[in-house]
């Protein structure tokens, strides 16, 4: 492994980490689980001079839930922690499922949800559900903290709105309004353990049979995880019938801007956006009826 020649720091606080990050400048990288970073170094895509590990910061792996406000997932909480957390399983099953759909067991035991977002791959498994649920990221810098809707976080493949010296310390997911349902659907060529070729996260909020609000987020079909806003609009204020779901699914498919690569062709991805959006909306409708 060609990883010789970097300095490693294990700060004990976010302030210290942020300070280090500013001091060390461009060649410094923050690491949570390292499951993306180390691979990039090995492939010679990155040559960090400094790595700042976050796992030594006490409390940063905390997962907390408060029914009134919502769920907070700390930056170093493992994917497997999120996938198996009893409260997340109960109140945010789609978030747990998305975490569980990320990579494989070994990687879930190292990697984090925050890292999955910061890596900003278009295919990030955890992004669509969190986008659909209106999640925010909490960014801490030496100047203090700011909250940014996840919507505004992804800028391009591998690029985020994180400013120099900032560290993503937590993800906040508001508790959905009553009668909401959330679903995450994904697909890949290799059955049960794989990177997603397409992923769709949705949240619908119902008022009787009418959908008062729908949020649809698509993964791996554009340079960043994206919202399908036209499809959302179609559903807003309408009776959530199977025909409407189909209509919205087709609209989402039109909105997707996928590329062809070794994982799937653009045409297939577009087709799958329709299928998965349809399935996600149906499941979300079902869950909303129960909630």
């Amino acid at each position, binding site marked *: 492994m*060609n990883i010789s020649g970097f300095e490693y720091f294990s700060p004990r606080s976010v302030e210290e980490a942020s300070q280090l990050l500013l001091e060390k400048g461009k060649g410094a990288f923050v690491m949570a689980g390292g499951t993306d970073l180390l691979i990039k170094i090995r492939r010679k895509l990155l040559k960090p001079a400094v790595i700042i590990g976050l796992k030594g910061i006490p409390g940063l792996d905390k997962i907390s839930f408060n029914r009134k406000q919502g769920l907070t997932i700390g930056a170093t909480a493992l994917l497997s922690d999120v996938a198996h957390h009893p409260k997340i399983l109960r109140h945010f099953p789609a978030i747990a499922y998305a975490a569980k759909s990320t990579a494989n067991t070994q990687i879930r035991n190292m990697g984090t949800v925050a890292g999955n977002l910061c890596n900003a791959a278009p295919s990030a498994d955890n992004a669509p559900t969190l986008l659909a649920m209106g999640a925010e990221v909490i960014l801490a810098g030496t100047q203090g903290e700011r909250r940014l809707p996840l919507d505004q976080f992804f800028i391009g493949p591998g690029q985020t709105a994180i400013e120099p010296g900032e560290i993503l310390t937590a993800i906040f997911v508001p508790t959905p309004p009553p009668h909401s349902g959330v679903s995450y659907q994904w697909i890949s060529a290799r*059955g049960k353990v794989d990177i997603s070729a397409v992923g769709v996260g949705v949240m619908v909020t119902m008022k009787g049979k009418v959908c008062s609000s729908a949020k649809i987020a698509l993964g791996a079909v554009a340079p960043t995880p994206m919202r399908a806003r036209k499809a959302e609009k179609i559903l807003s204020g309408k009776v959530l019938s199977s025909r409407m779901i189909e209509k919205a699914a087709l609209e989402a498919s039109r909105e997707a801007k996928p590329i062809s690569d070794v994982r799937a062709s653009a*045409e297939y991805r577009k087709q799958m956006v329709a299928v998965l959006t349809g399935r996600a909306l149906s499941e979300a409708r079902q869950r909303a009826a129960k909630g």
Partner: protein
Amino acid sequence: MKRFNIVGKDIPRADGRAKVTGTAIYTDDIKLPGMLYGRILRSPLAHARILHIDTKKAKALPGVKCVITGEDTPKIKYGNWRLFPNTQDEYPLAVDKVRFIGDEVAAVAAVDRDTAEEALDLIRIEYEELPAVFDTDAALKKGAPLIHEASPGNISLDRKISYGDIKKGFAESDYIREDVFTVHAVSHAYLEPCSTVAQCDLDGRITLWTSTQVPYIVQCLLASTLGMRENDIRVIKPYVGGGFGGKMEMRPWEFCAAFMAKKTGRPVKFTLTREEELATGRRRHPMKIYSKVGFKKDGTLVAKDLKIHLDGGAYNSMGPTATFLSGNFGAMLYRIPNYRYLGQHIYTNKPPAGAMRGFGAPQSLFAAETQMNMAAEELGIDPIDLRIKNAMVTGDKIPDVATISSCGFIESLKEVAKMSNWKRKRRTLRTGRGIGVGCYSFISGGVFNWFNTQYPFSAAEVRAFADGTVHLLTMASDIGQGSDTTLKQILAEELGLKMEDIRITAADTAMTPQADLGSWGSRVTLMAGNATLEAAKKIKEVLFGAISARYNLNVIYDMECKDGRIYAKGRPDRGMSFGEAVALVQKANRGKPLVARGHYTPRGKGLVTPAFSFGAQVAEVEVDRETGLVEVKKMWTAHDCGTVINPTGVEGQLEGSIHMGLGYALSEELVTKEGKTLNTTFLDYKIPSALDMPPGESICIETYEPEGPMGAKEAGEGLVSPTAPAIAEAVCHATGYRCKDLPITPEKILKGLRKK
């Protein structure tokens, strides 16, 4: 059938504990004092002339101890088909030209891996890029760029098989169909990437530890490319983490390690990365298969005309064998009175294809079995009934090739139909669910001596000791398939000993008897098994004589060795322990060690193999008609591998085969674009995971192969072939989509659905 004590039992593998506890030493675990680390510089171009190589900067980098290019080497070509030197088309390092992206051009040895890696970046090469071809159609076009000067038209070789009267056959047929099938390149994806360590002693002799299936072939070809004598090179095979055909040749890093160890006086290690393996490693031949078959109305097969273009990539590798075997397997399983085959091995500017589990059979049988399923559909005959009607049986002759000495094919078909509830499921499964069948036959080792060895095909030495233990020495190579365990079982059975009484030394060319051609073509159980058995029988002869003399027995007495004792059959009191008997023999011979050798070389067994295995497999699938995703719900297998030496071992081979067949059918494919492999990690080269493995049921049909040791024949390779055609048929049953070009992808299924 004969009753056995140890053969047929679930004996735990000899290597199991070492592997699961992490104490097994693989080549990359070996570290020698002063050892250097080697890296290979590969061509970034698919086809180019090398104009100039400048290694000055690389040599000047601190820590670099040796840099070599083709110009520094003796420039001797090599290849496994030694019998026909014109097929030997590879240099250890490129001379004058590169022919694929990844072709080995230079090598560096340095004090550590990072330094060696850094030095690679400092080597400057001036190329003149040449036009290149990336598929067989382009390679065959008039005026196509020539990849090897000696092979006009880019056809490196062809093979023909012909018997009966093909014209008459088709004239007599009521139903004829012609199809073109294409199959893709897949990787062996063995868990252990290739690795080698070379050491040179003060006399200039080389010791090479290497991850190989063929220590003897590596020894010989290393000798010829280095200009040395064979026995000045010692090849040791440590634990090997799988080969599947991908490690059955001498390879450039083995040459480079030995050459640089000689040059520097320090041990040199090379270990490939997974990216190198996937981007440049050997692979299964992509093929274009033109097949025409003729049947009578009642389903009787009358004629088959088969033409195959094998995409060989840039060098021959094991292509000549694959070219012949593809034609051989095209004629197996069923009685085909009129048969014609033309196979052409074609050069393209891609990483060379080589041997891979099944050796031509997975491709050829995917086409043959799919065509059989298509014919069954059109003739209105159940696919299994159509097979039973035409199935080969014991005693059948394949003209010029072999006589089938044991065959449980019809029984396999009947069993698998019963196990899977075939008839009912074919009729009643709902849309989206489907069931399909595929079959196979395979060789138990090859007969044709392409390596031109002067030694027996397999050899064994058994040393017996007065403490009741024996030592088996053999060059047969356990690469994970379990041959050490199997050979020990055969020996223990024959000598009436326990597994723990036997020590085995396998595959050290300086210690084990010459020779063994290696682990490929499913040859080890039959050939090394027979060699071991012969040596054991010689030991027994001597011990029986001693007991007979000691007890002054009537010459008509039969003798027996069992449970660690040797005695007169029917008079167990007239006998002694195995160790005492050995001591007795040694006393009578002034202490001379009791040693016996056995060997096996097939004789009078035709051109292909001493014995054929057979089997049938049924797959049930569920297809998501919206996404095109296939889930294999269950696999049923009934097969004939002769006497089962180790049931767990056979089951392991079956499960491994299904896993590999599943990937071949559904998800694995080396995707190349203009000769560049695009998926070089396991993230995008999609091997099915453990969670994707379907449950299965299997049964071994009892047969006794007269040519095999204790009736055994192959179980390691044939089983990889039926899975793809069985799944393809099941998908067709479920959706109406008929796959004629592997792999079966969700996109193809959705497109196929639309047409229906």
